[in-house]
């Protein structure tokens, strides 16, 4: 895509400063409205009945008593959600995940729902619904599900990507293979080969705001949905499709979002709220409880991974392979494939092969979680990189630098990289003061790298200039982390006006054309690109008007620093016209002044990160404390440094939680044991130190300002960085994430036992 790259490297007036965000006051005063903060007159409260079984046939659902309860206005089962998907497997899976169709596929799977005049009545009604289940054998572990004797969950799943195609159904939805070169020759040339196996447990995005929506369907087929979501347009399209509504007639308004991280890119109970509203002919408010969020939304995959890396004595990696098994919950997913695309991306490995398996188990349907699939693959690769470095006698950072990916290296998924920042990041690591800080007893330091591709996508924005010269920018990408300020800055920069004169808001689906979901670190990248083009569009109009007002030919006008000027000595006596002056006369010169842009923002720049982690491990309890943490990541161009740092720190914190504490615990009965924040332990304030950040700027040549997406890459290194730090602190290598106190203690005990065996023997 031939962008005007002249902006890259140019001196910016507004970009790069740290302005206050436009939604800040609302959020610190409690005025901001999130998913559960909307109400409608006459609204009903919805509650969902969920399967307590991991796998069961639903023989009968008797809703008669519930329907008769005073105050209950609608009860639905899958009978109220006819299959309108026309054979589109992806949509059928969503439909079935929203509500079970004859079979409960996981503990928490919705089987029925009610709408009643208040919460108490709704809960009473749930108790009156009688479901007759016939238990079926279940499987929740990814490796167990691949065994021939495992219960096969779907009889229509035949492993894709296998030649010849299997004739028997299994729980393996897909096999993906990627790579290049000749790994056998590569391993044959290696002096040192390290093979290890790792496991990572399932985690949840853990957003503090549960899913919530207010749905209102009218008898004429029009409907409104107020919902907390990362993608109002996607939700609109999916809900309209599932309910048989016209897309244009379903208006979805995104509330402020209380965290998403990928978990709010898919619908969960929203179609149920719409179906209840349609049946009851009244607005329906549906707010999930925290327990429902854990049991019945979209956590990330749990995995089982084998790595093999071979290297010469001089540290050059000659071959590497990954075999990665990801469970996608009760429906086929693409997680194994994503793992293949990212596993070796930080390194230039001429002979590599990654195989990814997508496995089905009786767990909730996995959704994306910030750089989906990459953290697990990176844990395996980064842990093994340290082991290989040790075997060839090289420093861990130098070993990575020796094999680092650069412009011209081939990515695991095929294309050749353009300019990228991982080498700079590692060099920054080497220079960083944390690397020289003294470590005490039981303390250790670990380094790890991470990669995420980032995406662009369909985007449109509207830029409207008011009579007083202040500007409204309407965007279609939900603001998950402060992007409204960055987008305002971009518009101000292009127009040459003050940041304070621009007000950004997120529009509803009736007001703008389709915008893809805020995911894949695309919010600022895509909407920023569209904002630039919309501003330039508006500038053309401003120049037209200025030419009129100054009575000069159109091509004599230039736009500089927020003003129109007639260039040429013959016009030197004419005044410059500010945006404000032109806007004031807009009614007389042609009407409202606006700029508009629809763009499919492609060319998203990949992002690399390198982290440094210092830990202290208590040998008596196995508790690991993070003492010091540094994130170094390439942002291309940091529009608002505070919010770029915020993304780095937040992603790192999630990775630390994932690495040390967070996991879904399933019982023998296939039920989730810890669906709450007490036992699903995310990091709290006292767990973490200040998280240092260093923003690198290797411009993305495919964006007018060089922007790269920043939100995801820094969740990728922490698991490996912590594993390496623990290994350096204790001499013991962890293979199972989270590296909780119990697991660390076990590993320490085992190491001690085998040591004493050795010395005794």
């Amino acid at each position: 895509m031939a962008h005007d790259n002249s902006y890259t490297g140019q001196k910016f007036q507004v970009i790069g400063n740290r302005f206050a965000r436009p939604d800040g006051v609302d959020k610190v005063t409690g005025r901001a409205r999130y998913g559960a903060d909307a109400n409608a007159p006459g609204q009903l409260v919805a509650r969902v009945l969920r399967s307590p079984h991991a796998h069961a046939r639903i023989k009968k659902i008797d809703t008669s008593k519930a329907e008769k309860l005073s105050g209950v206005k609608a009860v639905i089962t899958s009978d109220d959600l006819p299959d309108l998907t026309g054979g589109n497997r992806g949509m059928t899976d969503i439909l079935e995940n929203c509500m079970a169709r004859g079979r409960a596929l996981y503990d928490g799977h919705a089987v029925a729902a009610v709408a009643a005049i208040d919460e108490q009545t709704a809960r009473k009604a749930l108790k009156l619904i009688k479901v007759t289940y016939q238990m079926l054998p279940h499987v929740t572990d990814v490796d167990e599900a691949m065994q021939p004797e495992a219960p096969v969950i779907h009889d229509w799943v035949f492993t894709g990507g296998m030649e010849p195609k299997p004739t028997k159904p299994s729980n393996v939805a897909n096999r993906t293979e990627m790579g290049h070169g000749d790994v056998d020759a590569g391993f044959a040339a290696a002096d040192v080969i390290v093979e290890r196996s790792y496991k990572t447990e399932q985690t949840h995005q853990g957003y503090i705001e549960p899913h919530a929506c207010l749905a209102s369907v009218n008898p004429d087929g029009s409907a409104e949905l107020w919902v907390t979501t990362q993608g109002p347009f996607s939700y609109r399209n999916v809900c309209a499709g599932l309910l048989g509504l016209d897309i244009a007639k379903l208006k979805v308004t995104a509330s402020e979002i209380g965290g998403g991280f990928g978990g709010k890119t898919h619908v969960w109970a929203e179609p149920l709220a719409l179906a209840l509203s349609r049946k009851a002919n009244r607005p329906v408010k549906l707010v999930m409880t925290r327990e429902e969020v854990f049991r019945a939304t979209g956590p990330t995959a749990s995995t089982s991974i084998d790595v093999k890396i071979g290297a010469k004595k001089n540290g050059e990696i000659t071959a590497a392979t990954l075999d990665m098994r990801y469970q996608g919950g009760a429906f086929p997913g693409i997680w194994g494939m994503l793992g293949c695309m990212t596993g070796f991306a930080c390194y230039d490995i001429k002979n590599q092969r990654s195989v990814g398996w997508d496995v089905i188990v009786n767990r909730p349907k996995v959704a994306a979680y910030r750089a989906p699939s990459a953290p697990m693959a990176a844990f395996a690769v980064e842990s093994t990189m340290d082991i290989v470095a040790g075997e060839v006698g090289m420093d861990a950072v130098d070993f990575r630098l020796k094999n680092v990916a650069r412009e011209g290296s081939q990515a695991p998924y095929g294309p050749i990289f353009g300019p990228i920042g991982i080498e700079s990041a590692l060099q920054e690591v080497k220079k960083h003061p944390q690397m020289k800080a003294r470590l005490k007893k039981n303390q250790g330091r670990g380094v790890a790298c991470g990669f995420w591709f980032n995406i662009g996508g369909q985007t449109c924005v509207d830029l409207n200039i008011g009579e007083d010269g202040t500007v409204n920018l309407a965007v279609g990408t939900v603001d998950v982390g402060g992007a409204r300020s960055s987008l305002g800055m971009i518009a101000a920069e292009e127009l040459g006006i003050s940041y304070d004169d621009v007000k950004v808001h997120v529009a509803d689906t009736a007001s703008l054309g389709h915008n893809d979901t805020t995911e894949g670190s695309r919010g600022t990248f895509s909407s920023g690109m569209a904002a630039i083009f919309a501003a330039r569009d508006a500038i053309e109009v401003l120049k037209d008007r200025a030419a009129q007002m100054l009575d000069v030919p159109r091509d004599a006008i230039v736009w500089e620093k927020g003003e129109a000027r007639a260039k040429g000595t013959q016009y030197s006596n004419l005044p410059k016209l500010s945006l404000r002056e032109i806007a004031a006369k807009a009614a007389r010169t042609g009407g409202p002044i606006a700029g508009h842009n629809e763009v499919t923002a492609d060319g998203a720049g990949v992002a690399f990160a390198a982290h440094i982690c210092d830990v202290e491990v208590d040998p008596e309890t196995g508790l690991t404390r993070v003492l010091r943490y540094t994130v170094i990541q390439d942002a291309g161009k940091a529009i608002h440094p505070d919010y770029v740092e915020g993304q780095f720190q937040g992603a790192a914190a999630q990775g630390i939680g994932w690495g040390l504490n967070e996991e879904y615990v399933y019982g023998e009965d296939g039920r989730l044991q810890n669906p709450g924040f007490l036992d699903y332990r995310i990091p709290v304030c006292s767990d973490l130190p200040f998280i240092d950040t260093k923003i690198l700027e290797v411009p993305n040549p495919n964006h007018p300002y060089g922007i790269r997406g920043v939100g995801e890459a820094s969740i990728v290194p922490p698991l490996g960085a912590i594993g390496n730090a623990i290994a350096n602190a204790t001499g013991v290598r962890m293979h199972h994430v989270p590296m909780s106190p119990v697991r660390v203690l076990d590993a320490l005990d085992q190491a001690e036992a085998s040591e004493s065996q050795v010395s005794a023997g």
Partner: protein
Amino acid sequence: MSNAVLVSTTINGDTVEFACPADEVLLDSLRDRVGLTGVKEGCGTGDCGACSVTLDGELVCSCLVLGVEADGRAIGTVEGLTENGDLHPLQQNFIDHAALQCGICTPGFLVAAKALLDRNPNPTETEIRYALAGNLCRCTGYDKIVRAVQASAKDLRKAKKR
């Protein structure tokens, strides 16, 4: 006869009356009866702190207090932080230090931070971190939140001196 209990309470200094079932939690009373939606339900079990309020000056999770327990007592919510239309230094510093991203946890943090600074105007970093350990944030990693609280402690001590 109604099952609801009449509650007479003071919220942010104002007298407020509402009726609620005896088993309703204060969180729901504040949001649904009084219309103060600054408190948020993140978990309903006292683990996340998004529903933090002060009850007679003590920091509590409003999801663990019954609405009827507010009778005759004083509640403090995030809505009560502004004074005469001016943002409290904590609120201003949270904005200035980018201590919020999605903002859902922010009301709870502001109430908890104010409760801390009211009793300890010069807390160490460790004291701040432990005082705020009952408030979960998933977006920020807490770094900028702690810095905002440190800056606010400084601002408040300075203001007191004048």
